[in-house]
């Protein structure tokens, strides 16, 4: 056993350290298309103290560290580009406290969205959190770290906007509380009325610290939930439709999908509207408001509500939607990747045409999926392509299509979401120079040895 392995074993126990070929193979890659790079060690800690000790050891030995949740970003954010230690956080998966009346929860840094959803449904049926459509094993800390979105994003913004406090292990190994919890026993705010230091960590992909606890805002969970789909074949009208819908303030979530199959979906844009209510009357009132808001489009024959087949409703109402993962096997090949720039809703028509153009150019199966963020403040437009892992040519064509999306997104005024290292480089190059310098200052001061997820958000 090497000295480092021995030291790690002393911290987490021999069973939870590996430098074996099996773990270094698996943790070298994610399900997306980024090139693999092996870690030297993988550890699975159980406590905050263990994480601190690992970071201190890494600091002393100048070994890179990559904190990992479920590794589902698909863009290689937990691939250890410079080797070192991958810290799989998923044994730290406890729901620590729920403050029912203040509507927030504190969870450990490896807690999955699935576990929190189940926990709340069982113990606090009037509370919910913003569940993303990534697999249920995705962790809350990783999701806010990448500014993920979820079922409540149209109402309350990015999931990271719903953070109410953080506990972070700094690159030095020190433990730091962020938000109201830094001077109060209450974790109700990540910043205000103090300087908001959460921005030193959220969006940094672990390059500035490791989240060991997250407080997350919870929201009322209504007794009933339903879904409607408004369909149009005119992509140019989608931004106006979304504007009208968001004006009602009646919708839980707005997703738009467009895909070539089944053939009845071809060339249509499906604005999927989720509504909630405690009574039939509340649900009916919201439904009427929504229908009224789109009445003009119905009268002009530019769109209409689709009658949902019985099998489709439960699939849509699922949280998370398992069908998102199933997309990976459309070509019986177990792979999909998407680029999901955050972009103005007005750009929906351009994005929509672009994905069809690229799918045709590279002969790929596609799915366009947009999620409205805030009251139409922006959207995530997912350019998703499925590929067959056993077909290197198809994988290469998918890579090329995604490179084209990256170029298109920047040109269209979009900002990359959970960017690959190449996209990070492109973003940094295009960024305002003073912003770039500020990022460099932050990274250098927090992580002077450059051990935290190196390769990510590096400003040279």
């Amino acid at each position, binding site marked *: 056993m090497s000295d480092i392995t021995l030291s790690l074993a002393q911290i987490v126990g021999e069973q939870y350290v590996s430098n074996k070929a*099996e773990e270094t193979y698996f943790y070298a890659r994610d399900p997306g298309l980024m090139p693999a790079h092996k870690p030297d060690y993988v550890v699975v800690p159980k406590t905050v103290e263990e994480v601190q000790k690992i970071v201190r050891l890494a600091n002393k030995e100048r070994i890179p560290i990559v904190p990992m949740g479920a590794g589902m970003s698909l863009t290689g954010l937990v691939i250890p580009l410079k080797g070192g230690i991958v810290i*799989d956080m998923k044994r730290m998966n406890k729901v620590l406290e729920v403050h029912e009346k203040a509507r927030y929860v504190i969870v450990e840094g490896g807690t999955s969205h699935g576990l929190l959803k*189940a*926990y709340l449904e069982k113990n606090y049926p009037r509370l919910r959190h913003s569940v993303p459509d990534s697999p*249920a094993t995705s962790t809350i800390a990783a999701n806010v770290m990448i500014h993920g979105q979820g079922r409540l994003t149209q109402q309350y913004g990015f999931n990271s906007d719903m953070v109410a406090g953080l506990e972070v292990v700094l690159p030095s190994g020190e433990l730091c509380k962020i938000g109201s919890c830094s001077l109060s026993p209450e974790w109700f705010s990540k910043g205000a009325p103090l300087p908001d230091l959460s921005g030193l960590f959220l969006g940094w992909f672990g390059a500035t610290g490791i989240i060991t606890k997250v407080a997350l805002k919870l929201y009322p969970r209504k007794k009933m939930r339903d879904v409607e789909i408004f369909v149009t074949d005119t992509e140019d009208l989608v931004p106006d439709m979304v504007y009208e819908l968001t004006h009602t303030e009646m919708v839980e979530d707005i997703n738009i999908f467009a895909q070539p199959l089944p053939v009845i979906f071809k060339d249509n844009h499906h604005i999927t509207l989720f509504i909630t209510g405690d009574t039939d009357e509340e649900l009916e009132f919201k439904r009427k408001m929504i229908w009224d808001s789109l009445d003009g489009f119905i009268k002009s024959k530019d769109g209409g509500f689709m009658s949902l087949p019985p099998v489709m409703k439960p699939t849509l109402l699922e949280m998370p939607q398992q069908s998102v993962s199933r997309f990976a096997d459309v070509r019986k090949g177990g792979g*999909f990747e998407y680029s999901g720039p955050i972009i103005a809703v007005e750009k929906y028509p351009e994005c929509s045409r672009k994905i069809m153009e690229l799918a045709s150019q590279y002969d790929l199966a596609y799915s366009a999926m947009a999620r409205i963020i805030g009251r139409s403040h922006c959207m995530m437009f997912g350019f998703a392509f499925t590929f067959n892992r056993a077909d290197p040519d198809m994988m290469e064509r998918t890579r090329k299509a995604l490179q084209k999306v990256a170029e298109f997104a920047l040109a269209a005024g979009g900002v990359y979401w959970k960017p690959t290292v190449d996209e990070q480089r492109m973003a940094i190059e295009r960024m305002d120079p003073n912003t770039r310098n500020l990022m460099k200052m932050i990274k250098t001061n927090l992580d002077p040895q450059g051990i935290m997820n190196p390769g990510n958000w590096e400003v040279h």
Partner: protein
Amino acid sequence: MKYQDIIHRCFRCGYCKFTSDYYDFNCPSYRKFGFETYAPGGRMWLIQAWLNGEIKNSERFQEILFSCATCANCVEHCVFTFSDDLVNIFIAAREEMVNKGIIPPPVRDYLKNINTSGNPYKEPANERGKWADSTSIPAYDGHEYLFYIGCVGSYDERAKKIARTVGNVLIKARVSLGILSDRETCDGNEVRSLGEIGLFQFLAEQNITLFKELRVRKIITLDPHAFNTFTQDYPILGGEFEIYHYTQVLAPLIQSKKLSLRDYPAKITFHDPCYLGRHNGEYEAPRKILESIPGVSLIEMDQTRENALCCGGGGGNFFTDILGGGEDSPNRIRVRQALDSGAQIIAVACPQCAKMLEDAVKAEEVGHKIEVLDVAEIVARALA
């Protein structure tokens, strides 16, 4: 390798590790080891890497493959169309390893013992029926049912008690049955799950021939593992019999009052054996028995039926112990889940589960709070 056209299709999304409500991770080996490599997605990706020559058949790889308890939680919860084949894929990979002769020593020893002795304990065949010596259970001689015991019930001290109790209860209910005693041999379920398909076929064909010679039509099994292979595998080899797990025979007898039961006040939770539940869809029969006992309060654990956590004994681990012990071992977690339910008794319907959970009760030092009993043992206590 069989299923080679499927293995690359795993997206490693991780739904396979969960219960259906996502309340907890439910893959026994993932719970125990904590690395993604020990979860179904990890296995799929590593098998692919092994077939591609990117990793070797190392001790670690063997541990990863053979610590799978074949509990089928992944089959139940994987979201892809190939979910039904997941356990079969892991067994196929084991078969490849067995065929190349590079397997963990405990697996090798198990298979050798079965081959030479017809049982994993290296016990003489003529002692196979001794468990029944003090009972009135007859040798099979054209009875309505053959009562098939299996290796664990025939040789393991704790399991022999269960076998006697089940036999006695069925006799008391006037079920016409007989046993094979020293003519019985291993059913092969674990041999198959450990990947020794040639030996499995030999055992199965031997059993089928014997059953046919004796004109057996109906079989009651003590053990869900035998129940599984008799129902799932033997018909493919020409062994078509009516197969029942003993709870399936006992449930209607108790419900129709063929057995008179007195009050037995107890809070009981039922632990679903994987080879009765997830593999064969039988969740009701044991519960019907327990619910029919006056005074019994049947409490469900949060992780129950298709979401039940395996005891960790499946896939040969009962014999090989590759999954191993410790605080995170599935049998100890399962006992803690049972304690959380408020039950005083964990009811089981499988001798392997009984042993695994009793060991866990001892390791957790909670013997004063909870007891592990087979369903038939509870019935026996309630018999007037």
